[in-house]
């Protein structure tokens, strides 16, 4: 090989670089990209085939789940959960009615004494109401008046409708 060959190659390389630079500068890349139908390109890609080539098992084996979980701030996550809203979505009535929870509650809390006390109390309140209505009628008392002390009356409305009186 003659010693002049490398110098010719260097010259050719320099010329090629100059040409490529000028061509690239002259090109409007945005215009070219605008002409490409990206959707068409995406449609041509067989994603399933690509996914099939991935060894998911091997990928999962490489993931340290414990490490990932350790990075999660569970307290911060729980702080963002609105527990009250979550609990409000639970239909407690149907939960108790349709599950064995009802039987457990019945067996643990229901007794003749409990039922008797519920009955006595509800009868007492019924008679109180009757007398109140009578007095209000006699005194011609109408309009709203406090039903209980400020700290307690507000909670009463939140109670569920009551059980039937067994007769």
């Amino acid at each position, binding site marked *: 090989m003659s010693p002049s060959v490398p110098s010719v190659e260097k010259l050719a390389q320099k010329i090629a670089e100059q040409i490529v630079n000028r061509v690239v500068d002259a090109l409007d890349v945005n215009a070219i990209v605008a002409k490409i139908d990206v959707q068409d390109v995406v449609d041509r890609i067989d994603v399933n085939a690509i996914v099939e080539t991935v060894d998911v098992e091997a990928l999962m084996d490489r993931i340290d789940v414990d490490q990932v979980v350790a990075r999660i701030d569970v307290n911060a996550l729980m702080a963002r959960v609105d527990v009250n809203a979550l609990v409000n979505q639970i239909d407690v*009535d149907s939960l*108790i*009615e*349709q*599950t064995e*929870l*009802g*039987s*457990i*509650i*019945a067996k643990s*809390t*229901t007794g003749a004494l*409990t*039922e008797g*006390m*519920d*009955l*006595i*109390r*509800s*009868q*007492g*309140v*019924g*008679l*109180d*109401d009757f*007398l*109140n209505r009578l*007095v209000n009628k006699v*005194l011609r*008392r109408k309009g709203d*008046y*406090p*039903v*209980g*002390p*400020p*700290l*307690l*009356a*507000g*909670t*009463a*409305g939140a*109670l*569920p*409708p*009551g*059980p*039937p*009186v*067994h*007769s």
Partner: protein
Amino acid sequence: MNNRRPQGITRQGHYAGAISRLVAIACDVGIAWGALLLILGGINVAISLIVGHSLHWMHYRWVGIVVVVIWYPVYFAYQWALSGKTLGMALFGLQVVTVDGAAISGRQAVIRTLTLPFSIALFGLGLFGIVLRTDHRAWHDRTAKTCVVYDWDARAARMRWLAQRHDAAAADVPAPHA
């Protein structure tokens, strides 16, 4: 099954009416009397074991009156100070609270107890407020700055009723043929 719902279920925290309060205090008078008889009976048995003969309380009327006069206020004041309710009130789901709805203090319990006889005196004139006032407060309530509210656990009663319905429905389901 009658599906009528008790009136009190949504009344927790509301001012208690006259009938419940009257029956509750009648129960308390009876319970206090029974408890006093038990205590005196116990004392009598103890004395008879020690000295060999039992006491005849009829011979000590003034002592008996003094004991009764002391016992009743102690019975009411102690229980009101402790939990805001007596045994009779607990039976009817009632509780004494302050006019704001907070737990009453021992001082309020004592004032309420000492002024209760004045409400009962003069043909129960001081008790008329329980019937006529919208907050159902008698003289002794106003003096002690207290009121009486329904306090029974209506929510638990509701749960019990639902649980019973579940059991009844389960019993109605016919057993599958073998």
